[in-house]
């Protein structure tokens, strides 16, 4: 008889266990298998050995290692996998979650405290999961006078726009969700959606503090978009292209930050402002306007906005890496795939299996991903640090920085780029 469960009886416990197992089996059979069927039927199924893989074939393949590898490969190279997992949403969400945890620990170390500590055995590593559980089980309160559809939609749209931004970032050669000719312009187009979502959510909340926060966010994003756009003009001039993948290819020998340090600084500052991070967190300035445009969000809606903003942070850091730090370029550190596995096979106990189609992903891809992730993490680190060092700035200071100083610097950067081209240092005849 414990305090926690005073009516505990072993027989009831075993009964409940068996009950649960029964229901799990029933539900899996009735719901799970049809879902698997539907997925297998509607998802683009690969053609294997001149034969379309139907669901039944796919089932057999999953449990057949020699057939499973090509099948796996076809899944990994499918669009859906790109969107949902690797260069797309899953990867971004994973990095975003890691960023949240790293930020809390990093700030704690800067501020002479321990940070998350109790949840999880090691350094509170499960804190994020705990927070997620808390947020999802909290009540969502929507103000009575709010425009409900818009208010519900705003957090989802925020995450979705951030995800659309992620879609444009190339992680490794060929590994990008949408490899556009006008990638840079598309980036600006996607960034332009964020103020709209902010204003929508703040307008629909029908409350004073979100309203002021939304207007502040509008001013801030609008005034920092011009320096952001202009600071990247130098990159376009030097590389002569707007495609992000080609910009990375152009940086094979020299990273662009070598030639355009001013542009990189301007872009970094504008990035901080677009991300609403301290010192530019005016739209959420909690001591002035409670929580700005997030005031009325509660429970999971707030959680989604946070997730979205950290995905956005990853996307911006990735963009910085792609544009200025050479993207996936870096010395080859990943060892080549051992040939003998393909030629001789794997010795697993009594069985030797020769698997065709290995390696699943190429060496360049692994290497590129490794370097891209390392550089992105470094940039994220630099984005996180100002939060422990700077106070918040005021909106008129922000506007005057954006319009007077950063735009001027962006033009300086542009003329540096033009000068480099015209002097013949870079470009067709230069060291490029």
């Amino acid at each position: 008889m414990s305090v926690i469960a005073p009516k505990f009886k072993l027989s009831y416990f075993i009964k409940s266990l068996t009950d649960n197992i029964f229901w799990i089996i029933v539900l899996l059979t009735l719901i799970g298998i049809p879902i698997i069927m539907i997925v297998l039927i509607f998802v683009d199924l690969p053609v294997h050995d001149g034969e379309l893989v139907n669901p039944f074939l796919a089932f057999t393949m999953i449990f057949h290692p020699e057939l499973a590898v090509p099948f796996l490969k076809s899944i990994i190279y499918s669009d859906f996998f790109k969107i949902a997992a690797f260069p797309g949403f899953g990867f971004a969400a994973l990095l975003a979650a890691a960023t949240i945890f790293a930020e809390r620990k990093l700030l704690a170390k800067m501020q002479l405290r321990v940070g998350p500590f109790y949840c999880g055995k090691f350094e509170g590593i499960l804190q994020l999961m705990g927070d997620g559980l808390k947020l999802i089980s909290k009540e969502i309160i929507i103000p009575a006078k709010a425009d409900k559809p818009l208010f519900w939609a705003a957090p989802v749209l925020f995450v979705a726009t951030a995800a659309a931004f992620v879609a444009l970032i190339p992680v490794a050669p060929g590994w990008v969700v949408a490899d556009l000719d006008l990638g840079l312009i598309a980036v600006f187009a996607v960034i332009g959606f964020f103020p709209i979502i902010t204003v929508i959510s703040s307008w629909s909340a029908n409350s004073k503090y979100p309203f002021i926060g939304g207007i502040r966010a509008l001013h801030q994003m609008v005034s920092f978009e011009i320096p952001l756009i202009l600071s990247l003009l130098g990159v376009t001039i030097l590389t002569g292209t707007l495609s992000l993948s080609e910009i990375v290819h152009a940086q094979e020998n020299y990273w662009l930050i070598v030639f355009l340090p001013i542009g990189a600084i301007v872009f970094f500052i504008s990035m901080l402002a677009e991300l609403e991070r301290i010192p530019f967190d005016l739209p959420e300035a909690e001591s002035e306007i409670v929580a700005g445009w997030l005031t009325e969000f509660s429970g999971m809606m707030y959680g989604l906005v946070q997730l979205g903003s950290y995905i956005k942070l990853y996307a911006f850091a990735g963009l910085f890496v792609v544009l200025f730090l050479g993207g996936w370029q870096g010395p080859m550190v990943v060892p080549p795939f051992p040939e003998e596995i393909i030629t001789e096979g794997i010795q697993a106990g009594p069985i030797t299996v020769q698997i065709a189609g290995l390696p699943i992903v190429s060496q360049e891809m692994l290497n590129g991903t490794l370097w891209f992730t390392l550089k992105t993490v470094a940039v994220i680190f630099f984005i996180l640090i100002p939060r422990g060092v700077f106070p918040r700035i005021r909106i008129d200071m922000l506007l005057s920085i954006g319009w007077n100083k950063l735009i001027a610097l962006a033009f300086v950067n542009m003329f540096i780029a033009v000068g480099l081209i015209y002097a013949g240092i870079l470009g067709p005849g230069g060291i490029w």
Partner: protein
Amino acid sequence: MANYSQVMLMFGFAVVAMAPALIISRMISPRKRSNPVKFLPMECGQVPSGAGRTHFMMQYYAFILMFVVFDVMAIFLYAWGATLLELEKSTILPIIAFLGIMFGAMAYALNQSKRRDIW
């Protein structure tokens, strides 16, 4: 063109992936409609007075108007910048003239934006 649709697919995927979070939250979270005060907008513990969204003029509205002009200008510069390598060197001159005009306009607008009473 398929590439552009992938951006939209990604957008749609995020919507489809994140909406369940809200739905599950709605399902498992408590919902008590006990108190009408609970659903009032945030007013720091007071009963709200006045409309939540009003005619509210930030004094920095001039910057937003400038944005409308300069955003277009910036994109125009991209059209020039992306093809700079193929253009004659003398094409920089009209661009500089263009920038000069824009800078003059911008300086005037910035100067005017310091006047708070124009709005």
